[in-house]
């Protein structure tokens, strides 16, 4: 059972999420096709999903990142592409589990793109001094003053 399972376990799926000024999901798909890798690809509204043997997918990811190093973000997905257990077409609508995390983080992707570009250019972050926590004695004095003024 374990041996028979090995080839299936070698298959991974990755989400490619775009936050790019130069590339739309359709363009990404053509680039992936042009690489002629042995993977399954699905175009999505946010980019693409690719599924295949681990080494094929990882090599494709390396090649794809070069196209727009600061506009392409990648994470792994647990379920295979078009899996009926996750597909919204068969689950009666609603957001797919995992969507909300991507939605929340998608808002930060333009910031990340600029930050990664600046990191590669050697820009150091500006240090912001956090305001120190209020001293207990000062806080007590504020409370006493407030009570006194009532």
């Amino acid at each position, binding site marked *: *059972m374990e041996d*028979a*399972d090995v080839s*299936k*376990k070698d*298959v*991974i*799926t990755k*989400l490619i*999420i775009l936050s790019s000024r130069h590339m739309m999901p359709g363009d990404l798909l053509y680039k992936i096709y042009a690489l002629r890798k042995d993977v399954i690809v699905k175009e999505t509204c946010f980019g693409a999903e690719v599924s295949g043997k681990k080494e094929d997918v990882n090599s494709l990811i390396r090649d794809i*990142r070069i196209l727009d190093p600061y506009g392409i*973000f*990648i*994470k*792994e*997905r*647990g*379920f*295979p592409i078009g*899996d009926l*257990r996750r597909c919204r077409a068969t689950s009666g609508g609603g957001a797919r589990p*995992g969507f*909300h*995390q*991507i939605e*929340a*983080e*998608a808002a*930060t*992707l333009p*910031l*990340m793109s*600029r*930050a*990664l570009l*600046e*990191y590669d250019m050697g*820009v*150091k*972050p*500006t240090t*912001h001094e956090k305001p120190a926590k209020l001293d207990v004695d000062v806080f007590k004095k504020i409370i006493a003053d407030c009570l006194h003024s009532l």
Partner: protein
Amino acid sequence: MSKILIYPTNSLVLADLVDRFGHEPLTIPQEIRKKVTSVGLDSPPLNITPEDPKIGLKYAAVEVPSGVRGRMALIGPLLEKADAAVVVSDPEATFGCMGCARTNELVNFLIRAKKIPMLELSYPTNDDDARDFVYKIAEFLQSSEVLKHE
């Protein structure tokens, strides 16, 4: 290449940054993939079996809700493998029911209890924060305490 546990465990930004800086992100989709792509599912459709809460017993007592133990059955093996951790504190998208919330608290506790190198951050909301976020993660992943596990 060190194994870096990320929290939130399905974070796109953290998984991408860890991968980008040459390490292996430990994310929950990896564990989900092992479950849902096994040949001959023991417990269709998601293959969550009675064994899973038992695995979770290693991390949480029997009185703890089974939801916490079930989730720990997925996150626990990642914790065991982790050489270091990158944690975003109080991410908005991880609010949830008692099962989710308590699991998040337990994971954060276990990361600290394991005494592995850990970087704690907040999600960026502006360009300055994003620059700081990327810089700190990059420096942490290239630091000697993380690289010594390679």
